[in-house]
């Protein structure tokens, strides 16, 4: 962990970063939408697998002005920066208005409050320049009657004092860290995210010291990797994360093609294909022996921009994955099969980064 003040500037090293940032700034500049700071980016109700079992969940994506790293350029696959307000920060009052709207949504659509609350910001909830300490404490209080809370953050900002706003309420607390991959080289050069696996390990230790846990978010198939390289990267990453004390859950998610991203540029010119759902199933199936909950939530499955197979079997495989998320039982994948497995096997055997994609 860096001893310097956490800021995007601490990442200002590495030969690829300037190039990636320059490209991403140009790509993002094509976008001209703005967003209302009093509206959350998104909110929905779902079910999640937690260390204490399956729980109903309220997921909130707060609009906090977005990721400061993304303003410098940011991650090659991330389009969420665009879901930000113009000009930067969102005030405490506006953030609390967003939370109120999320509670209204929950009250409208659910009989009871969800035991699990997950708060994402497309940045770092624990970064006080995104979410002021005052707001963090108020949100801790707001959800103090729930069972568990998950907040998203870069590892730099994980700090026992900040987490006390939640643990002090008696909440089981997890930090969701967008690690993307355990392979530093892939995280730096393909994702353009500038922290190291060692920083993740340090964040896990810090969380543990605060009696909190960590949920690692992994990204399957960032740009520049072939399908077999991407699968190998995920298999090793899941194992490395699960081996870190304090990291009790790994959410391994296939990259999807978001608007105004470098991935979209590659996709548009025929240089990127979102991963196969068979690849997701393969990673989940082969890592069931690890000491962590491993889940995946493919976004936009079955579409060209999301993880997909041939079009015939996408829904079935997606259903199996969601089923696996809740039960962690690899036999769910024995229930699905399709002719396109033969194609996926050929791609896994033959695809190279200099001759991809071999199949759409």
């Amino acid at each position, binding site marked *: 962990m860096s001893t310097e003040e956490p800021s995007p500037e601490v990442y200002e090293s590495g*030969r*690829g970063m*300037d*190039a*990636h940032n*320059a*490209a991403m700034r*140009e*790509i993002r500049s094509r976008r001209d939408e703005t967003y209302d700071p009093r509206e959350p980016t998104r909110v929905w109700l779902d079910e999640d697998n937690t260390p204490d079992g399956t729980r109903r969940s309220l997921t909130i994506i707060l609009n906090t002005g977005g990721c400061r790293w993304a303003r410098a350029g940011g991650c090659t696959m991330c389009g969420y920066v665009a879901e930000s307000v113009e000009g930067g920060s969102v005030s405490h009052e506006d953030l609390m208005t967003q939370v109120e709207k999320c509670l209204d949504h929950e009250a409208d659509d659910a009989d009871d409050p969800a035991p699990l609350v997950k708060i994402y910001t497309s940045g770092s909830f624990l970064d006080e320049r995104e979410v002021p300490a005052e707001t963090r404490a108020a949100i801790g209080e707001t959800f103090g009657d729930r069972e568990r809370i998950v907040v998203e953050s870069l590892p730099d900002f994980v700090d026992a004092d900040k987490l006390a706003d939640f643990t002090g309420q008696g909440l089981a607390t997890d930090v969701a860290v967008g690690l993307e991959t355990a*392979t530093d*080289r*892939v995280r730096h*050069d*393909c994702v353009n995210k500038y922290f190291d696996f060692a920083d993740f390990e340090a964040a896990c230790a810090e969380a543990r010291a605060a009696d909190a846990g960590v949920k690692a978010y992994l990204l399957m198939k960032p*740009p*520049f*990797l*072939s399908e077999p*390289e991407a699968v*190998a*990267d995920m298999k090793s990453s899941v194992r490395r994360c699960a081996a870190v004390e304090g990291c009790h859950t790994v959410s391994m998610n296939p990259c999807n093609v978001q608007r105004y991203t*470098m991935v979209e*540029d*590659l*996709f*548009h*010119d*025929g*240089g*990127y294909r979102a991963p196969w759902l068979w690849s997701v199933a393969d990673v989940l199936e082969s890592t069931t022996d690890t000491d962590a909950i491993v889940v995946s939530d493919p976004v936009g499955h079955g579409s060209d921009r999301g993880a997909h197979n*041939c079009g015939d079997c996408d829904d079935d495989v997606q259903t199996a994955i969601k089923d696996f998320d809740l039960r962690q039982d690899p036999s769910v994948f024995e229930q699905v099969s399709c*002719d*396109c497995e*033969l*194609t996926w*096997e*050929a*791609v896994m055997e*033959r*695809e*190279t*980064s*200099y*001759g*991809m*994609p*071999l*199949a759409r």
Partner: protein
Amino acid sequence: MTDHFEVHARDGAARIGEIRLDTPLRTPGLVGDRLHDAGSEWAAGRETPDGDPDALTLLPHRALPAGTPDSVRETFGGAGNAASADDAPAPDELDVASAVVVAPDTATDHGADAYVLSGGPALVGHAERFVDAVTTVRRAIPDDSALYLAGAATPANVAALVYAGVDLVDADRAHVRGTQGFYLTAEGEYFLEDLEELPCACPACRGGREAFDRRACAEHNVTALETALRTVRARIRDGRLRDYLEGQGRHESFPTSVLRRLDGEYAYVEERTPLFRRESLLAATEDTLRRPEIRRFADRVTSRYVPRFDDRPLLLVPCSATKPYSESQSHAQFHRAIDYRAHTVSMTSPIGVVPQELETTYPAQQYDSVVTGHWSETEYEFIAAVLARYLERADYPRVVSHLPADYRPIVDRALDRLDTVPPVEHTVVDHPTTEDSLASLAGALEGEDRFGKREREHHTVRALADYVFGAGAGDELFCDLRTGSRYPKLRALDAGIEPRPGDDTDDDGAVHLATMVPNYGTLSLTLAGARRWVESDVPTKRVEIDAFVPQGSVLAPGVIDADESIRVGDEVVVDGPEAFAVGRAQVHGRGMVDATRGIVVQVRHSVET
């Protein structure tokens, strides 16, 4: 510097060659399991491998997929192992065959034997980008290095890939398409499920339709690709890959898009196109009109060639199927009526106009067309444009048009473009060879002077010199021209220069400079002719060699420099500290300089200096 790749034969930008491994890998061909990939540095740090003497070693790489932003290309876009530790060996320091991954804008001479152009699958979906990428990379890497396009080849597109300059492909795309239920052939693809009968007799297809599943389909596709590559290699050896590609264009759009775009890259294809071929050139599509050979002929006839007979009537006649024209029945009949009283120029699609002196040149003597009497608008326009350009540079007192009615619009359109039009007379009554027409032709030339054999022969030698060596050569190379022997094997001698010891002279002491080669319509020079060329103001196509005396041939390692204007088949002067020689180029000039193996000049005469 490529120690492990050698080009054996060329047909335009396409080549037959071999990667020199313990068991040679033939190109164009499938790289198969002969590629040892050190791996992508996007995924992990890689070591430069020791290398297998029986495999092409692909050095650690960072491939740039289609759509990679410029700043990222520039930063990560060096050759494969540029991203490795600074002490990683350069490709040419390895003693095994090596390959590096490049993108068009990052390709340069890395000293490798082969170059892998990244992004193949996207390129073969987009002919414009494909042609841009291949021509850019080909210009940036040495001529005698192999170019590998991965994940791209199918039986239907591989001829186009090779035609553009790709040497190596793989069967990955063909195999994967099979697993997706696409049955591939050289004419395109079928949905397997729509096929009642398998249109192939390869081992995978012989088991019958019922047993034929997607695995079998993948196997068939790979065999079909191998078959297509054999066809391509046979076509390159025959110098007829272009005709094959034009034929494939009747089924698939990609081959046509590629050849049309390449025709637009005239400098790239012209540099690689031979001066002549033994084989015939079939003009069966309109795309033939844009072949580099055709355009080069038209360019030379309307820029280098001097119409020395333009003090005579210009006689326009139709072409004949027999080549050269003078050996055809129809032209023999015209000839009797003309009796050397006019300058005969044949009108033809796809060549344009062929003055009688150039009837043996390529492709005037080698083309064959599909004659129906119906002309397309493109043909009319092309030939009219060439005729107009031809006439602008000439000063004929009158034009006699002995052409059938279907040729008339060409003459009319050409004359419309001219500022000053000589008087034109049409002499064909119904058909050019009827008695009436021939009598009308003879009548039109009544009273014109006959020109002699000497004038005819001199003009032919000078016209060929213009055509082969460049503008002005016909006048510059010969001071006091004498001709000997019989047409079409004319000998050109010069009575105006001093013979040197060893020079061949005639009884009058005139020095033998050149001999007409009737098969290809060129002039082959003697040593005296080569010296004359060097001394003249005509730019010499020169190959500079090391200190040795070439016997029979010049091999690539002996070449120090070569003129960039040299084309395959060109006469070249070979010059070095110990020898002076003349011969015929087997490789274009830049290719000679780049090459490290193989014959680059067939030497006809050499002398120690």
